[in-house]
Protein backbone atom coordinates (compact mmCIF):
# COMPACT_ATOMS: atom_id res chain seq x y z
CA UNK A 1 0.00 0.00 0.00
CA UNK A 2 2.86 2.37 0.82
CA UNK A 3 4.01 2.11 -2.83
CA UNK A 4 0.57 2.95 -4.17
CA UNK A 5 0.91 6.75 -4.08
CA UNK A 6 4.35 6.98 -5.78
CA UNK A 7 3.22 4.48 -8.45
CA UNK A 8 -0.03 6.36 -9.05
CA UNK A 9 1.81 9.68 -9.26
CA UNK A 10 4.39 8.22 -11.64
CA UNK A 11 1.66 6.74 -13.83
CA UNK A 12 -0.10 10.10 -13.97
CA UNK A 13 3.01 12.24 -14.56
CA UNK A 14 4.77 10.09 -17.17
CA UNK A 15 2.13 10.39 -19.95
CA UNK A 16 1.82 14.10 -19.14
CA UNK A 17 5.56 14.60 -19.51
CA UNK A 18 5.56 12.67 -22.79
CA UNK A 19 2.63 14.77 -24.06
CA UNK A 20 4.35 18.02 -23.09
CA UNK A 21 7.53 16.86 -24.82
CA UNK A 22 5.63 15.94 -27.99
CA UNK A 23 3.86 19.33 -27.96
CA UNK A 24 7.20 21.04 -27.42
CA UNK A 25 8.67 19.45 -30.55
CA UNK A 26 5.71 20.31 -32.81
CA UNK A 27 6.41 23.03 -35.36
CA UNK A 28 4.68 26.40 -34.95
CA UNK A 29 1.65 26.74 -37.31
CA UNK A 30 3.50 29.07 -39.66
CA UNK A 31 6.58 26.87 -40.00
CA UNK A 32 7.09 24.46 -42.88
CA UNK A 33 9.68 21.70 -43.05
CA UNK A 34 10.95 21.66 -46.64
CA UNK A 35 13.13 18.63 -45.84
CA UNK A 36 16.82 18.37 -46.52
CA UNK A 37 18.25 19.32 -49.88
CA UNK A 38 21.41 17.92 -51.31
CA UNK A 39 23.74 20.31 -53.07
CA UNK A 40 23.97 19.68 -56.81
CA UNK A 41 27.39 18.55 -57.98
CA UNK A 42 29.32 21.74 -58.67
CA UNK A 43 26.12 23.77 -58.42
CA UNK A 44 24.93 26.40 -55.99
CA UNK A 45 23.51 25.62 -52.59
CA UNK A 46 22.56 28.32 -50.10
CA UNK A 47 20.79 27.83 -46.80
CA UNK A 48 19.99 30.66 -44.41
CA UNK A 49 18.35 30.03 -41.08
CA UNK A 50 17.75 33.13 -38.98
CA UNK A 51 16.44 31.93 -35.63
CA UNK A 52 14.53 33.89 -32.97
CA UNK A 53 17.68 34.69 -30.99
CA UNK A 54 19.33 36.26 -34.05
CA UNK A 55 16.12 38.11 -34.93
CA UNK A 56 15.90 39.61 -31.44
CA UNK A 57 19.57 40.59 -31.66
CA UNK A 58 18.96 42.30 -35.01
CA UNK A 59 15.89 44.00 -33.56
CA UNK A 60 17.93 45.42 -30.72
CA UNK A 61 20.60 46.63 -33.15
CA UNK A 62 18.16 48.69 -35.22
CA UNK A 63 15.43 49.64 -32.75
CA UNK A 64 16.77 53.16 -32.21
CA UNK A 65 17.60 53.82 -35.83
CA UNK A 66 14.52 52.25 -37.44
CA UNK A 67 11.76 51.66 -34.88
CA UNK A 68 9.16 50.79 -37.54
CA UNK A 69 11.35 48.03 -39.00
CA UNK A 70 12.16 46.80 -35.48
CA UNK A 71 8.42 46.55 -34.85
CA UNK A 72 8.06 44.22 -37.87
CA UNK A 73 11.05 42.10 -36.76
CA UNK A 74 9.58 41.72 -33.28
CA UNK A 75 6.68 39.79 -34.77
CA UNK A 76 8.96 37.18 -36.39
CA UNK A 77 10.20 33.87 -35.08
CA UNK A 78 12.17 32.38 -37.96
CA UNK A 79 13.39 33.19 -41.45
CA UNK A 80 14.47 30.19 -43.50
CA UNK A 81 15.74 30.36 -47.08
CA UNK A 82 16.99 27.57 -49.36
CA UNK A 83 18.44 28.21 -52.80
CA UNK A 84 19.41 25.19 -54.86
CA UNK A 85 21.02 25.39 -58.27
CA UNK A 86 19.08 23.48 -60.92
CA UNK A 87 20.86 21.21 -63.38
CA UNK A 88 20.02 18.15 -65.43
CA UNK A 89 20.78 15.90 -62.48
CA UNK A 90 18.31 17.38 -60.01
CA UNK A 91 15.68 19.17 -62.13
CA UNK A 92 13.02 16.47 -62.01
CA UNK A 93 13.61 15.81 -58.30
CA UNK A 94 13.20 19.50 -57.48
CA UNK A 95 10.06 19.81 -59.58
CA UNK A 96 8.55 16.84 -57.76
CA UNK A 97 9.56 18.38 -54.44
CA UNK A 98 7.91 21.69 -55.35
CA UNK A 99 4.70 19.91 -56.37
CA UNK A 100 4.71 18.01 -53.08
CA UNK A 101 5.23 21.16 -51.00
CA UNK A 102 2.41 22.98 -52.84
CA UNK A 103 -0.01 20.11 -52.29
CA UNK A 104 0.99 19.83 -48.65
CA UNK A 105 0.52 23.56 -48.05
CA UNK A 106 -2.92 23.60 -49.65
CA UNK A 107 -3.95 20.54 -47.66
CA UNK A 108 -2.88 22.26 -44.44
CA UNK A 109 -4.99 25.35 -45.09
CA UNK A 110 -2.37 27.69 -46.51
CA UNK A 111 -3.83 30.25 -48.86
CA UNK A 112 -2.11 30.88 -52.18
CA UNK A 113 -2.07 34.63 -52.68
CA UNK A 114 0.30 34.95 -55.62
CA UNK A 115 0.85 32.66 -58.58
CA UNK A 116 3.08 33.71 -61.42
CA UNK A 117 3.92 31.39 -64.29
CA UNK A 118 5.96 32.60 -67.21
CA UNK A 119 8.29 30.62 -69.44
CA UNK A 120 10.27 28.29 -67.19
CA UNK A 121 9.67 30.30 -64.02
CA UNK A 122 6.96 29.60 -61.48
CA UNK A 123 6.39 31.65 -58.34
CA UNK A 124 3.93 30.74 -55.61
CA UNK A 125 3.34 32.77 -52.43
CA UNK A 126 1.36 31.16 -49.62
CA UNK A 127 0.04 32.69 -46.42
CA UNK A 128 -1.09 31.01 -43.22
CA UNK A 129 -3.49 33.16 -41.23
CA UNK A 130 -5.42 32.83 -38.02
CA UNK A 131 -8.88 34.42 -37.85
CA UNK A 132 -8.19 36.06 -41.22
CA UNK A 133 -6.26 38.98 -39.69
CA UNK A 134 -3.18 37.52 -38.02
CA UNK A 135 -0.47 36.15 -40.30
CA UNK A 136 1.26 33.10 -38.80
CA UNK A 137 3.63 32.38 -41.64
CA UNK A 138 4.56 32.93 -45.24
CA UNK A 139 6.01 30.57 -47.81
CA UNK A 140 7.47 31.45 -51.19
CA UNK A 141 8.32 28.70 -53.64
CA UNK A 142 10.12 29.63 -56.83
CA UNK A 143 11.34 27.26 -59.48
CA UNK A 144 13.28 28.84 -62.26
CA UNK A 145 13.72 25.82 -64.51
CA UNK A 146 17.07 26.71 -65.97
CA UNK A 147 18.72 28.28 -62.94
CA UNK A 148 17.57 27.69 -59.41
CA UNK A 149 14.84 26.69 -56.99
CA UNK A 150 14.12 28.94 -54.01
CA UNK A 151 12.19 28.00 -50.88
CA UNK A 152 11.40 30.68 -48.30
CA UNK A 153 9.56 30.32 -45.01
CA UNK A 154 9.03 33.26 -42.69
CA UNK A 155 7.36 32.34 -39.41
CA UNK A 156 5.49 35.15 -37.70
CA UNK A 157 3.40 38.16 -38.57
CA UNK A 158 4.71 39.33 -41.94
CA UNK A 159 3.13 40.74 -45.08
CA UNK A 160 4.44 39.71 -48.53
CA UNK A 161 5.31 43.33 -49.34
CA UNK A 162 7.64 43.40 -46.31
CA UNK A 163 9.83 40.60 -47.68
CA UNK A 164 12.17 42.94 -49.59
CA UNK A 165 12.80 44.95 -46.44
CA UNK A 166 13.48 41.74 -44.51
CA UNK A 167 15.94 40.59 -47.20
CA UNK A 168 17.68 43.91 -47.00
CA UNK A 169 17.95 43.92 -43.21
CA UNK A 170 19.33 40.38 -43.01
CA UNK A 171 21.35 40.69 -46.23
CA UNK A 172 19.52 37.77 -47.85
CA UNK A 173 19.63 38.53 -51.57
CA UNK A 174 17.11 35.89 -52.75
CA UNK A 175 14.56 37.27 -50.28
CA UNK A 176 15.22 40.80 -51.48
CA UNK A 177 14.72 39.76 -55.12
CA UNK A 178 11.50 37.86 -54.39
CA UNK A 179 10.17 40.78 -52.33
CA UNK A 180 10.87 43.18 -55.19
CA UNK A 181 9.12 40.79 -57.62
CA UNK A 182 6.04 40.65 -55.37
CA UNK A 183 5.97 44.44 -54.96
CA UNK A 184 5.76 44.78 -58.75
Amino acid at each position, binding site marked *: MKYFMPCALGTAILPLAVAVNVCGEALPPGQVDFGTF*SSPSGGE*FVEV*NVTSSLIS*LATKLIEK*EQPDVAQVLRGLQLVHVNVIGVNEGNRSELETRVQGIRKDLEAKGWERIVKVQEKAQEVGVYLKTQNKDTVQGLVVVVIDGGKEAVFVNVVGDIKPEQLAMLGEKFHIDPLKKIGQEIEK
Partner: protein
Amino acid sequence: MGPTNPSEPTVFPFRVRDMVLGGVLVGFVLAVVGVTGYFRLSSEGTILRESAMSCVSGTWDKKIALHVGMLTTGLVRAGSHLFRLAPEPRAAFDTLRGAEVGLYKLQEGAGWVDHQAILARADRAMSARRWDRAVGVSRENELVAVYFPRRGLSTERMKCCVLVLQGRDLIVAGASGNLEPLLAIATKHLDLKDATQHFALR
Protein backbone atom coordinates in the same frame (compact mmCIF):
# COMPACT_ATOMS: atom_id res chain seq x y z
CA MET B 1 49.90 1.74 20.07
CA GLY B 2 50.32 4.12 23.01
CA PRO B 3 48.83 7.61 23.40
CA THR B 4 50.60 10.44 21.62
CA ASN B 5 52.92 12.48 23.78
CA PRO B 6 51.80 16.15 23.59
CA SER B 7 55.35 17.31 24.19
CA GLU B 8 56.55 15.71 20.90
CA PRO B 9 56.80 18.20 18.01
CA THR B 10 54.07 17.81 15.35
CA VAL B 11 55.43 16.26 12.16
CA PHE B 12 53.87 17.59 8.94
CA PRO B 13 53.51 15.02 6.19
CA PHE B 14 55.12 17.51 3.75
CA ARG B 15 58.13 19.69 4.30
CA VAL B 16 58.28 23.30 3.18
CA ARG B 17 60.68 22.36 0.41
CA ASP B 18 58.18 19.79 -0.95
CA MET B 19 55.39 22.36 -0.87
CA VAL B 20 57.48 24.93 -2.73
CA LEU B 21 58.45 22.30 -5.31
CA GLY B 22 54.78 21.30 -5.67
CA GLY B 23 53.80 24.95 -6.13
CA VAL B 24 56.46 25.45 -8.78
CA LEU B 25 55.33 22.28 -10.57
CA VAL B 26 51.66 23.35 -10.52
CA GLY B 27 52.68 26.82 -11.72
CA PHE B 28 54.74 25.27 -14.52
CA VAL B 29 51.87 23.01 -15.61
CA LEU B 30 49.44 25.96 -15.53
CA ALA B 31 51.87 28.06 -17.55
CA VAL B 32 52.29 25.25 -20.11
CA VAL B 33 48.51 24.81 -20.36
CA GLY B 34 48.08 28.58 -20.62
CA VAL B 35 50.73 29.03 -23.30
CA THR B 36 49.64 26.00 -25.36
CA GLY B 37 46.08 27.32 -25.06
CA TYR B 38 47.12 30.10 -27.42
CA PHE B 39 47.71 27.43 -30.07
CA ARG B 40 44.61 25.32 -29.47
CA LEU B 41 41.15 26.01 -30.89
CA SER B 42 38.07 26.09 -28.66
CA SER B 43 35.82 23.04 -28.50
CA GLU B 44 33.47 24.50 -31.15
CA GLY B 45 36.37 25.37 -33.42
CA THR B 46 37.78 21.87 -32.97
CA ILE B 47 34.41 20.32 -33.87
CA LEU B 48 34.23 22.34 -37.09
CA ARG B 49 37.80 21.47 -38.00
CA GLU B 50 37.28 17.74 -37.29
CA SER B 51 33.99 17.73 -39.23
CA ALA B 52 35.74 19.06 -42.30
CA MET B 53 38.84 16.90 -41.97
CA SER B 54 37.01 13.65 -41.31
CA CYS B 55 34.96 13.98 -44.51
CA VAL B 56 37.98 14.26 -46.78
CA SER B 57 40.40 11.44 -47.47
CA GLY B 58 43.79 13.12 -47.43
CA THR B 59 46.38 14.67 -45.18
CA TRP B 60 45.94 18.13 -43.73
CA ASP B 61 48.81 20.42 -42.80
CA LYS B 62 48.32 22.88 -39.99
CA LYS B 63 49.47 26.33 -41.03
CA ILE B 64 48.50 28.16 -37.87
CA ALA B 65 46.09 27.94 -34.95
CA LEU B 66 45.74 30.89 -32.59
CA HIS B 67 43.31 31.44 -29.77
CA VAL B 68 43.06 34.36 -27.38
CA GLY B 69 40.59 33.98 -24.57
CA MET B 70 38.93 36.15 -21.95
CA LEU B 71 42.06 36.47 -19.82
CA THR B 72 44.25 37.80 -22.63
CA THR B 73 41.59 40.12 -24.05
CA GLY B 74 40.85 41.27 -20.49
CA LEU B 75 44.52 42.12 -19.94
CA VAL B 76 44.69 43.93 -23.29
CA ARG B 77 41.50 45.80 -22.42
CA ALA B 78 42.84 46.80 -19.01
CA GLY B 79 46.19 47.79 -20.55
CA SER B 80 44.50 49.85 -23.23
CA HIS B 81 42.92 52.01 -20.53
CA LEU B 82 46.41 53.19 -19.58
CA PHE B 83 46.71 54.90 -22.94
CA ARG B 84 44.73 57.70 -24.47
CA LEU B 85 42.88 56.16 -27.41
CA ALA B 86 40.28 57.42 -29.85
CA PRO B 87 36.75 56.17 -29.02
CA GLU B 88 36.58 53.79 -31.99
CA PRO B 89 39.68 51.67 -31.22
CA ARG B 90 38.72 51.75 -27.54
CA ALA B 91 35.27 50.40 -28.44
CA ALA B 92 36.95 47.65 -30.49
CA PHE B 93 39.13 46.64 -27.52
CA ASP B 94 36.14 46.78 -25.18
CA THR B 95 34.06 44.64 -27.55
CA LEU B 96 36.38 41.68 -28.03
CA ARG B 97 36.17 38.92 -25.41
CA GLY B 98 37.83 36.13 -27.35
CA ALA B 99 38.92 35.19 -30.84
CA GLU B 100 40.46 32.25 -32.63
CA VAL B 101 41.56 31.26 -36.08
CA GLY B 102 42.92 28.05 -37.55
CA LEU B 103 44.34 27.65 -41.07
CA TYR B 104 44.87 24.22 -42.60
CA LYS B 105 45.85 23.05 -46.07
CA LEU B 106 44.91 19.80 -47.73
CA GLN B 107 47.83 18.08 -49.43
CA GLU B 108 47.80 17.47 -53.17
CA GLY B 109 46.16 14.27 -54.40
CA ALA B 110 43.38 14.25 -51.80
CA GLY B 111 39.99 12.78 -52.62
CA TRP B 112 36.75 14.55 -53.52
CA VAL B 113 35.47 16.99 -50.91
CA ASP B 114 31.82 16.30 -50.09
CA HIS B 115 30.42 19.64 -48.87
CA GLN B 116 27.07 18.13 -47.94
CA ALA B 117 28.72 15.50 -45.74
CA ILE B 118 30.80 18.18 -44.00
CA LEU B 119 27.72 20.30 -43.32
CA ALA B 120 25.72 17.31 -42.08
CA ARG B 121 28.49 16.18 -39.74
CA ALA B 122 29.19 19.69 -38.44
CA ASP B 123 25.46 20.34 -37.94
CA ARG B 124 25.06 17.16 -35.89
CA ALA B 125 28.08 17.84 -33.70
CA MET B 126 27.32 21.53 -33.19
CA SER B 127 23.65 20.84 -32.52
CA ALA B 128 24.66 18.51 -29.70
CA ARG B 129 26.42 21.53 -28.17
CA ARG B 130 23.31 23.67 -28.79
CA TRP B 131 24.74 25.62 -31.69
CA ASP B 132 22.73 26.11 -34.90
CA ARG B 133 23.88 26.85 -38.41
CA ALA B 134 22.62 30.23 -39.58
CA VAL B 135 24.27 30.18 -42.99
CA GLY B 136 25.47 27.43 -45.29
CA VAL B 137 26.75 28.21 -48.78
CA SER B 138 28.26 25.70 -51.16
CA ARG B 139 29.38 26.73 -54.60
CA GLU B 140 31.80 24.79 -56.79
CA ASN B 141 34.84 24.34 -54.55
CA GLU B 142 33.79 26.79 -51.83
CA LEU B 143 31.94 26.08 -48.63
CA VAL B 144 30.96 28.56 -45.92
CA ALA B 145 29.09 27.73 -42.72
CA VAL B 146 28.30 30.11 -39.88
CA TYR B 147 27.11 28.91 -36.47
CA PHE B 148 25.58 30.71 -33.50
CA PRO B 149 24.58 29.42 -30.05
CA ARG B 150 20.91 28.45 -29.84
CA ARG B 151 20.32 30.35 -26.60
CA GLY B 152 21.88 33.17 -24.62
CA LEU B 153 22.70 35.51 -27.49
CA SER B 154 22.47 39.17 -26.69
CA THR B 155 24.30 42.34 -27.56
CA GLU B 156 26.31 41.90 -24.33
CA ARG B 157 27.09 38.26 -25.10
CA MET B 158 27.71 37.54 -28.76
CA LYS B 159 29.41 34.42 -30.08
CA CYS B 160 29.87 32.88 -33.49
CA CYS B 161 31.95 30.28 -35.30
CA VAL B 162 32.76 30.13 -39.00
CA LEU B 163 34.04 27.39 -41.27
CA VAL B 164 35.37 28.30 -44.71
CA LEU B 165 36.66 25.74 -47.15
CA GLN B 166 38.08 27.16 -50.34
CA GLY B 167 39.68 24.63 -52.60
CA ARG B 168 42.28 22.95 -50.40
CA ASP B 169 42.34 25.67 -47.75
CA LEU B 170 40.34 25.27 -44.56
CA ILE B 171 39.76 28.21 -42.24
CA VAL B 172 38.05 27.86 -38.89
CA ALA B 173 37.42 31.05 -36.96
CA GLY B 174 35.42 32.15 -33.96
CA ALA B 175 34.81 35.26 -31.91
CA SER B 176 32.95 36.29 -28.82
CA GLY B 177 32.32 39.74 -27.49
CA ASN B 178 30.15 42.42 -26.06
CA LEU B 179 28.64 44.53 -28.83
CA GLU B 180 27.42 47.28 -26.49
CA PRO B 181 30.54 49.51 -26.76
CA LEU B 182 30.36 49.33 -30.57
CA LEU B 183 26.63 50.05 -30.49
CA ALA B 184 27.22 53.02 -28.22
CA ILE B 185 29.72 54.43 -30.72
CA ALA B 186 27.32 53.80 -33.63
CA THR B 187 24.45 55.46 -31.76
CA LYS B 188 26.63 58.43 -30.85
CA HIS B 189 27.52 58.95 -34.53
CA LEU B 190 23.88 58.55 -35.47
CA ASP B 191 22.73 61.10 -32.88
CA LEU B 192 25.36 63.52 -34.08
CA LYS B 193 24.25 63.03 -37.70
CA ASP B 194 20.58 63.53 -36.75
CA ALA B 195 21.41 66.60 -34.69
CA THR B 196 23.33 68.08 -37.63
CA GLN B 197 20.39 67.43 -39.93
CA HIS B 198 17.95 69.11 -37.53
CA PHE B 199 20.35 72.00 -37.10
CA ALA B 200 20.49 72.39 -40.88
CA LEU B 201 16.70 72.49 -41.05
CA ARG B 202 16.44 75.43 -38.67
